[in-house]
């Protein structure tokens, strides 16, 4: 075993923090840097995040090695013994090769000594410079010396070198002598590291630059980031929703979506991927404060597993959604704004709003030099794609694993430690259920770190849905994963098998795996990764017709020479076919991109055929938006429909007719279709069965549920059991691979050391007092209890997180919390 690696992570936003924690938890050393004086990135400004309106950032803290990170709210900052945070620092140069990079870092003086500053704020009073506060997106003013985050710790202030006039007044009043205004010093530092992770985040569009919607001209037009601060009780309005122009309460609020995105004139042929949800959240929170919100949108992009339900909740609690892009607005006498919009053809409305919030788009943002092409430099998070929190974390964990693998040798198990935490012996083996892309990438990642893996696959082949995938490149990628897994000596593959009995405690599980003859081994393993996949939904029997198929089947069929040569006058796609409705209330994410990709394919053989889409919301987040634009450019016609009047399929012997309503024409339209593709979605496979066997949660639709949809996306909630891929939520191939690696990363942290450390504080049972009433079992949120064989409840030592719920519910104090060490 080699020495632990050392890594530089550039960007201390949520992706950078996640990647750093992942590496730190498996014994590596990390230098985490940011150009800002504090860590936290954009999340410093967001008190609550969708899809549950909660904060809970602290849940991403290490669950096991928790004593290594301080017990802190993550909004205060990130602290871990293996992570050195360098504020005001950027990368100047990267040299060398992977595994042996030389990184030149440059730091500049913060002018305020964090060891001396006590955050008293006397300097804020005397600083003569006032300028718009970036954090509040110019909603309020700050001084040249300022508090860089609403509640960062240590509570140090910082000086913005660009606006400071060096008048020295702050220095005069500072009682601790923390301020140095001398010549700017810059310090360069060379780090020798295994790999560099770039997690440099995103930039938000400035609507002032494009003179959009009177931003900068009317005070009551603000960005969504400014509104976020307005919602915060630590923000400029203490959480009250006010018109900036006159401080009057803002009752009617309009959100305008896609400002700076989905706009070809601005060269923004992308979707930011999160603003719809962001606006829904803001609107929902504003309703709690008594406002009446309206969201102006084009496509409500609720493409995450639970997002459609989130939208439904908001709508049912009174949120108004208007499908159109407003044209312009004007100031109104007596405050507020007049917004002109046209929700349906022929109708023009001027409506008064107190406040207009521009949902500003994002774009990858990094002003420094681009090192992404360099070997040994990996890119993650929003800086790679426009991701929401959950996907950012998955991406960061995936990348951190790849970074760790660059060192080429497995992570060393951590030995002695100054902290006297108790340890539990764990099995250094992981059971992976499912041999699709997610399971394979998880297995390969673990095997690459010297952890042995058993893959249990129900089919007699690996690769999951590979036969269903028409994209040759994707197919080849999966085949490569299969080949790599098959020849890896650390991976044992059990085909035509399924897990049947499961028992034990975290780190020491036993699973009986049975083949079709009901025979098979009992596998002892430390962790489980559930990657059981899923499949496309089958169409109802009433729709069996040679011309009607799912969009996935249609996409494949387009490769048939027979179809290529056939006369195709008209193809009709019906998206969200019986999905995003009561029975199956989620977006499958892949139907839209697949159908849109089909357009290009059709055009290559049939330049003149008519291509019609009936859709509710086209779901093409991020770069996928280009697929939509391209399909329109290729002449596909998009007709939105509402769930109460869906397009009708009339099946006849030789032909299929699709009837629908075109809202722009205000008329019925009718198409004789040569082929019909239905976006009927994807569904999880054996979710319910697995959930029951492994004692984890599953949703109504059969998707395995994570411990926390944002902060612990691949944790099942039961320590030692991890979930990824289509079993958890509809994902693309890339995402499945990322989730597999992220799950591997989480499992790795548990089993890489044969002596896993327990949490500092865990519950213990005093067996003599236990009456086995089971109250503790029921209240334990971590599944860390089980009825023991000796007439008393027992605690799963690695699963227990020391929350004390068991202690509070046990009338007899048979359950007690023990704190080790200090």
């Amino acid at each position, binding site marked *: 075993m080699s020495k632990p690696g050392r890594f530089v992570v550039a960007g201390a936003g949520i992706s950078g923090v996640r990647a750093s924690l992942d590496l730190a938890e498996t014994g590596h050393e990390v230098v985490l840097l940011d150009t800002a004086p504090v860590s936290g990135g954009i999340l410093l400004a967001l008190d609550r995040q969708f899809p549950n309106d909660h904060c809970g950032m602290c849940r991403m803290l290490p669950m096991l090695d928790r004593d290594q990170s301080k017990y802190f709210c993550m909004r205060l900052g990130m602290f871990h013994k293996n992570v050195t945070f360098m504020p005001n620092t950027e990368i100047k140069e990267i040299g060398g090769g992977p595994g042996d990079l030389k990184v030149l870092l440059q730091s500049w003086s913060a002018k305020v000594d964090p060891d001396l500053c006590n955050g008293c704020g006397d300097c804020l009073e005397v600083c003569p410079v006032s300028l718009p506060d970036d954090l509040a997106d110019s909603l309020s003013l700050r001084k040249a010396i300022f508090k860089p985050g609403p509640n960062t710790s240590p509570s140090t202030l910082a000086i913005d070198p660009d606006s400071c006039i060096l008048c020295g007044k702050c220095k005069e009043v500072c009682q601790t002598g923390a301020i140095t205004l001398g010549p700017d010093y810059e310090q360069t530092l060379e780090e020798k590291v295994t790999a560099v992770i770039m997690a440099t985040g995103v930039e938000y569009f400035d609507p002032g630059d494009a003179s959009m919607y009177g931003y900068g001209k009317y005070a009551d037009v603000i960005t969504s980031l400014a509104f976020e601060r307005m919602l915060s009780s630590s923000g400029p309005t203490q959480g009250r929703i006010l018109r900036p122009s006159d401080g009057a309460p803002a009752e009617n609020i309009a959100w305008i979506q896609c400002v700076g995105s989905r706009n070809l004139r601005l060269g923004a042929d992308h979707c930011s991927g999160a603003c719809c949800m962001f606006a829904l959240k803001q609107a929902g929170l504003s309703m709690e404060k008594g406002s009446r919100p309206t969201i102006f949108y084009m496509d409500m992009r609720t493409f995450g597993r639970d997002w459609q339900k989130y939208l439904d909740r908001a709508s049912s609690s009174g949120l108004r959604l208007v499908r159109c892009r407003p044209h312009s607005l004007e100031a109104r006498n007596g405050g507020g704004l007049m917004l002109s919009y046209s929700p349906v053809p022929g109708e023009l409305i001027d409506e008064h709003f107190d406040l207009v919030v521009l949902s500003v788009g994002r774009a990858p943002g990094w002003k420094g030099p681009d090192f992404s092409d360099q070997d040994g430099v990996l890119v993650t998070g929003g800086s790679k794609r426009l991701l929401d929190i959950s996907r950012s974390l998955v991406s960061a964990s995936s990348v951190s694993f790849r970074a760790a693998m660059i060192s080429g040798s497995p992570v060393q198990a951590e030995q002695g430690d100054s902290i006297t935490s108790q340890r539990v012996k764990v099995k250094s083996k992981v059971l992976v259920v499912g041999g699709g892309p997610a399971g394979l990438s998880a297995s390969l990642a673990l095997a690459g770190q010297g952890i042995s893996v058993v893959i249990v696959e129900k089919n007699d082949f690996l690769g999951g849905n590979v036969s269903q995938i028409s994209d040759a490149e994707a197919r080849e990628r999966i085949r490569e994963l299969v080949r790599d897994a098959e020849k890896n000596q650390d991976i044992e593959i059990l085909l035509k098998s399924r897990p049947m009995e499961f028992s034990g405690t975290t780190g020491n599980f036993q699973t009986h795996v049975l083949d079709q003859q009901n025979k098979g081994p009992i596998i002892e393993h430390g962790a489980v990764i559930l990657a059981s996949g899923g499949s496309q939904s089958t169409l109802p029997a009433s729709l069996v017709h040679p011309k009607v198929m799912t969009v996935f089947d249609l996409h494949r069929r387009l490769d048939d020479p027979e179809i290529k040569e056939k006369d195709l006058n008209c193809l009709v796609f019906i998206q969200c076919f019986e999905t995003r409705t009561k029975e199956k209330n989620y977006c499958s994410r892949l139907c839209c991109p697949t159908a849109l990709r089909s357009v290009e394919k059709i055009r290559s053989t049939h330049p003149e055929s008519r291509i019609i889409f009936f859709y509710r919301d086209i779901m093409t987040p991020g770069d996928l938006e280009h697929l939509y634009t391209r399909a329109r450019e290729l002449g596909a016609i998009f007709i939105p429909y509402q769930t109460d009047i869906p397009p009708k399929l009339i099946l006849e012997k030789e032909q299929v007719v699709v009837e629908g309503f075109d809202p722009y024409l205000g008329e019925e339209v009718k198409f004789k279709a040569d082929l019909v593709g239905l976006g009927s979605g994807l569904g999880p496979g054996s979710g319910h069965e697995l959930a029951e066997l492994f004692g984890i949660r599953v949703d109504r639709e059969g998707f395995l549920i994570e411990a926390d949809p944002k902060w612990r996306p691949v944790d099942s909630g039961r320590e030692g059991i991890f979930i990824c891929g289509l079993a958890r939520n509809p994902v693309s191939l890339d995402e499945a691979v990322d989730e597999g690696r992220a799950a591997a990363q989480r499992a790795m942290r548990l089993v890489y050391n044969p002596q896993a450390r327990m949490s500092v504080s865990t519950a213990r049972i005093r067996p*003599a*007092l236990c*009456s086995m*009433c089971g*109250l503790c079992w*029921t*209240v334990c949120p971590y599944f860390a209890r089980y009825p023991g064989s000796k007439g008393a409840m027992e605690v799963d030592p690695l699963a227990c997180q020391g929350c004390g719920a068991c202690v509070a519910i046990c*009338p*007899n*104090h048979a359950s007690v919390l023990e704190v080790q060490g200090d």
Partner: protein
Amino acid sequence: MDKSFAFLKTNNQPNRILSRALGKLLDKGLVSAVMAPGITNGSDLPMPVLFTRDEAMESCIPLAPAAGVSAAVQAARIGRKVKDKRVAVVLKPCEVRGVIELAKLNQTSLESLAIISMECPGRMENDAYLAKLSASPDLPDLYLNDSSLQDQASSTCLSCDAFEPQGADITIHLFGLPVMEHIGISGMTAIGNELIEAMDLEKPGAAYDQREAMARLREKRGRAKEELFQKTGEILKNPDQYLEVLGNCLGCFNCRTACPLCYCRECVCARESFDRDLDDVSNRAKKTGQARMPAGLSMFHMTRMVHMSHACVGCGQCSSYCPSKIPVADLFRTMGQQVQNTLDYSPGRDPEEPIPYLRFKTEAGS
């Protein structure tokens, strides 16, 4: 399940006749044992007795107007230990509630129990019963037919309007019936009906209308209960009065021992952490001039209330056991009522109803 109402001719000996009917269950092998109030050597006080042969049923007093202990605990013990056999247990309605509550706490299983309960006229305090019994050996039968005797029941029973059993397999009907001629028996579940079949009962020609008798009793006891809660509520709200009532506590912990719901193996209050530090006592003494030395009894009672008030089934055994005649049950029931109302919970009502402090799981959002 339709109730199957039938009569049992009592020939002025309702207890004996009912015992024999129960004996038939043993005789026919429908149950492997019957647990019911009975007399064993050494005492005339009815105690839970386990009968396994029908000839032994002569000492059984199933409708005894006294209960040395709450039979809930014993029934629960049977339910926990006995598997694959059926045991009939004769319980008062409050005891049935106790068993159900204990089942929720995983202290028993209802699977092997056939619960027989009755419309309860209440029980007398043990000493009053024994005194009366020496003068009148037929007291257990007479009591069922004599409302002036029933008025001598324990104060808890006199203020109990939950006298109709809930959750039993068989209900024995007494109110509004000429009990010296016959009592009514109905099966409330499939098991209950199966057992009743074996008792060779006569099917009713014309059923008695019990409604008026029940309503009268419910009204009477309900009023008594409200008065009690009112009175006790006032005491509870007034620290001086409360102290006066509780001041006589000796710290014998009998109330805890008697409580069928106190299921802990060893009470938390018996532990060191409940001992008052002498410094505490002396600090208090310095402040107020005096402080009672055996400290922490108020903490004991409060803790028991915190732990048990939501689950109190109102059997009154705690009061019966108290050597200082502290109306522990009154205090508990009054408090229990308030807590149960707040939590919208009724102990022993339904085995499926979760313990209120576990119900957070069903809640979403704020």
